[in-house]
């Protein structure tokens, strides 16, 4: 066991919030993975009609949307950790993190478009 030294904890606990978010989103994604695997197995053969029928279920689309939000949040925490570990110049790190946020927002919009078929 690790013995903790007495120390004064400071800060706004952003780290704790990220840590918790990473675990809650992980559990959501694990559950969705199991549900999706069962749904696919239930579906049987893999053709376009069966595939469309699976995605026609509103509940499955909502579950997938929940998964997507959990995934994008989880990805943000993880990628941010990676940038904090490996990209030391603050300017470069901010640019990369900005690009990551743009990509994640873009993916969120794309997910909604695909799931609910909003096409121009």
């Amino acid at each position, binding site marked *: 066991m690790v013995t903790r030294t007495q120390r004064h904890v*400071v*800060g706004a606990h952003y780290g704790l919030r990220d840590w918790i978010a990473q*675990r809650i989103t*992980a*559990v959501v*994604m*694990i559950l969705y*993975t199991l549900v999706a695997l069962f749904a696919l197995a239930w579906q049987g053969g893999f053709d*376009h009609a069966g*595939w*469309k029928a699976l*995605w026609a279920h509103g509940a499955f689309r909502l579950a997938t949307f929940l998964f997507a939000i959990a*995934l*994008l949040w989880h*990805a943000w925490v*993880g*990628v941010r950790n*990676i940038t904090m570990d490996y990209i030391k110049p603050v300017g470069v790190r901010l640019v990369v993190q900005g690009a*990551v946020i743009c990509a994640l927002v873009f*993916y969120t919009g*794309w*997910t909604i*478009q*695909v799931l609910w*078929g909003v096409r121009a």
Partner: protein
Amino acid sequence: MPPTRPVDPPRRPVYLNLPAIRMPIPSIVSILHRVSGALLFLLGIPWALAALDASLASPAAFASYAAVAGHPVAKLIAIGLVWAYVHHLLAGVRHLALDLHAGLELAAARRTSAAVFVLAILITLAVAVRIW
């Protein structure tokens, strides 16, 4: 009072010759958790969205997607992403167990990390055999 840094932290030698650092199995599984996570962000999310988009659009788009996905290079990438997903998920489950103080002892930590490493490869192989 604003938080201050500790006064003059002791200077310690920095030894980061990566190839020379011995990597025990938990540390290999740990770095692969990060590598697989980065892969899933960089390739996995756009690939999954593009695939879902194309596959739902129309029978013709489904067929053309199936043709692209049938290319050996596409299959190799897909198998790589399957490995990334499975490894990341299993290593994540191990993390959750560690958070609950399960498997913290060194021997158990080594066993579970070896199990994650091997199981991820076995499941990936099973999927690879199926989609090839």
